[in-house]
């Protein structure tokens, strides 16, 4: 019955005290009985509220230190919340780490039982499911082998198999899926998908936005312990990427110290170049959004119909796109000495996610000589929820026509 919340997080706050000076021994306590070490308070979670409905695949995303792991541990009952409440309906199982309680000196048989019991099965249930678990992990031949003789891949398979056999109504999953190869990850998500179809609710903590957009129905974005956004995975993913690259993407200062590459005869100068989104300078370009690149040039001599070219490259210096004012209908006219002019070109961002560099050129009419060329004068990061792997992600329309027979 969709629509009924099974997890309700109500104004949860969690604080950690970070003492400046740790008192770790009774001796120190005895020597300084009245010293109360000063401490900083770290607000790991502040007033976090959301509800998850039955059968939802719910993502919890955020940058490092945003509080998502703390939230997971509060949900799991490992940390106690300071204020607020977390309510749940149904049996909960937590997967913060694969193979909790695994002991390398014991055989797979014992480890499966221990791990199952740790995850909430009774010893009887764990025994009953043992065959299934081993079969799912495809490790029938190695049941009596000590775990330390397993390859790491086999260990992960075993641990995951136990996890998939634990019947909980609500699953808390940390980024355990980051381990293992692509095929294994696929298998994991298939299991989650199956669980979801059985009406189970999954809360998934990650910073892999492609996983969020592929699997989650909804997601919450945490930023500095607060809820920044709850919504569709793509919306949350886009905001996350924007947040993530907002710091440090614009440090282009470090990117163009290689001025020797600057070429020009000094007749004119490129003063500045930048990216713009929605009319303001930006160093994050959401994929699909309209974006503008601009250069400001100053003439030192009279320049007749100079050409202004924009070259966009990715961080492997593959040229992505080049365009000049001669291609468009924006003739420069004659620039008087000392006169500054801004040239802009606006386009839809179709580039794949990653860094984009702008190299502006100013060239005399006819193509040569170069008045000024400043390699990678500006940089920005394209953010995208999907990563196709190509240099560009073009808007497209896919079709499939069935039943068409080719004539011999």
């Amino acid at each position, binding site marked *: 019955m969709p629509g*009924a*919340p099974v997890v*309700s997080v*109500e*104004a949860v706050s969690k604080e*950690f005290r970070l003492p400046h000076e740790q008192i*770790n*021994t*009774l*001796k120190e*306590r005895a020597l300084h009985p009245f010293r109360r070490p000063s401490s900083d308070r770290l607000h790991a979670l502040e007033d976090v*509220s959301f*509800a998850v409905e039955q059968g939802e695949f719910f993502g919890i995303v955020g940058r490092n230190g945003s509080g998502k792991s703390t939230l997971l*541990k*509060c949900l*799991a*009952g*490992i*940390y*106690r*919340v300071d204020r607020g*409440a*977390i*309510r*749940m*309906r149904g049996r*909960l199982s*937590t997967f*913060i*780490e694969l193979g*909790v*309680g695994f*002991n390398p*000196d*014991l055989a797979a048989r*014992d480890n499966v*039982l*221990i791990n199952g*019991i*740790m*995850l*909430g099965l*009774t*010893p009887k249930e764990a025994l009953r499911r043992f065959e299934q678990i081993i079969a799912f992990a495809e490790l029938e031949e190695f049941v009596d082998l000590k775990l330390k003789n397993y390859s790491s891949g086999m260990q992960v398979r075993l641990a995951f198999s136990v996890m998939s056999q634990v019947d909980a109504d609500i699953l808390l999953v940390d980024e355990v899926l980051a381990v293992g190869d692509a095929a294994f990850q696929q298998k994991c998500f298939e299991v989650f998908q199956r669980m979801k179809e059985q009406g189970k609710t999954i809360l998934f903590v990650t910073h892999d936005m492609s996983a969020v957009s592929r699997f989650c129905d909804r997601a919450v974005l945490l930023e500095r312990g607060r809820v920044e956004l709850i919504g569709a995975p793509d919306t949350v993913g886009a905001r996350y990427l924007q947040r993530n690259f907002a710091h440090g993407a614009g440090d282009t200062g470090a990117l163009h110290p290689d001025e020797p590459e600057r070429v020009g005869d000094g007749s004119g100068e490129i003063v500045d170049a930048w990216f713009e989104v929605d009319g303001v300078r930006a160093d994050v370009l959401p994929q699909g959004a309209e974006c503008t690149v601009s250069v400001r040039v100053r003439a030192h001599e009279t320049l007749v119909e100079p050409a202004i070219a924009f070259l966009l490259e990715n961080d492997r210096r593959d040229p992505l796109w080049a365009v000049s004012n001669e291609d468009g209908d924006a003739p420069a006219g004659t620039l008087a000495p000392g006169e500054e002019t801004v040239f802009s070109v606006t386009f839809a961002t179709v580039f794949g996610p990653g860094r984009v560099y702008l190299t502006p050129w100013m060239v005399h009419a006819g193509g040569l000589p170069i008045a000024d060329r400043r390699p990678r004068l500006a940089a920005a990061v394209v953010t995208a929820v999907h990563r196709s792997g190509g240099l560009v992600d073009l808007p497209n329309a896919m079709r499939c026509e069935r039943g068409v027979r080719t004539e011999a």
Partner: protein
Amino acid sequence: MSAHPEMGPPIAGPSALGGSPRRFAHLALTLAATEFKLRFFGSALGYLWQLVRPLMLFGVLFVVFTEFIKLGERVTFYPVVLLANIVLFTFFQEGTGAVGSMVDRESLVRKIHFPRMAIPVSVVLTAGFNLALNLVVVAIFATASGVRPHWSWLQAPLIIALLAAFVCGLAMLLSALYVRFRDVKPIWDVVLQVLFYATPVIYAVEAIGVSAAIQHALMMNPLAALLEQFRHAVIDPAAPSAAEAAGGAVRLLVPGAILVATVAVGFRVFNREAPRIAEQL
């Protein structure tokens, strides 16, 4: 956000015992059995090694105190008393070895939700399995030495239960304190050493020729009272009972009170610390 009436009460976070006594029992038993199994099958000779330690200690002490110092001359069944005392003291030592257990099991504590007390209790249980096996050896040795079964053997389970409760109390107290104060472990090691000699393990309290006052004072130690009563009830009915050695049954109220207080304080301290142990590790 309004609370949904059909939802359960707020989840309580970590605690010492958790909501389900069954889960607590399953976890403590599983952890204890695993640990025991590891020790048992850890080497080719397995259990034999488990036995060798108390037996070696027994052998050395036996030679020293019968051949050189003659401490056991006036004690009936001295070898049996010595072995039984060593076995019981070994249980005490292993059980209170839970002092570092919360820290050692950090990976569990920080990764899953479970009743925290399962960890120190599991250590006491492992020590208990060991005690059970060692007591079989003691029984064989006692029978071979001429100790005859007696009705007072029925006291043994009660004595061992009291000892186990005492050990549990200490295990809870020490393991909870160790999370915050890392010198608890070396301090406890020293205390154990003192206790080994302050408790009538290698000697019989009435046979060492100390004044009655000192003898009575020694019996204020719960461990001493329990060992003395075990000796009286199981090995040698002619030996003084705990009450006799302490100078009257009333005086046994002191070790009794210490035992009860240890369990109560241990439980309270652990209970108070349990919700925050995961954060403090």
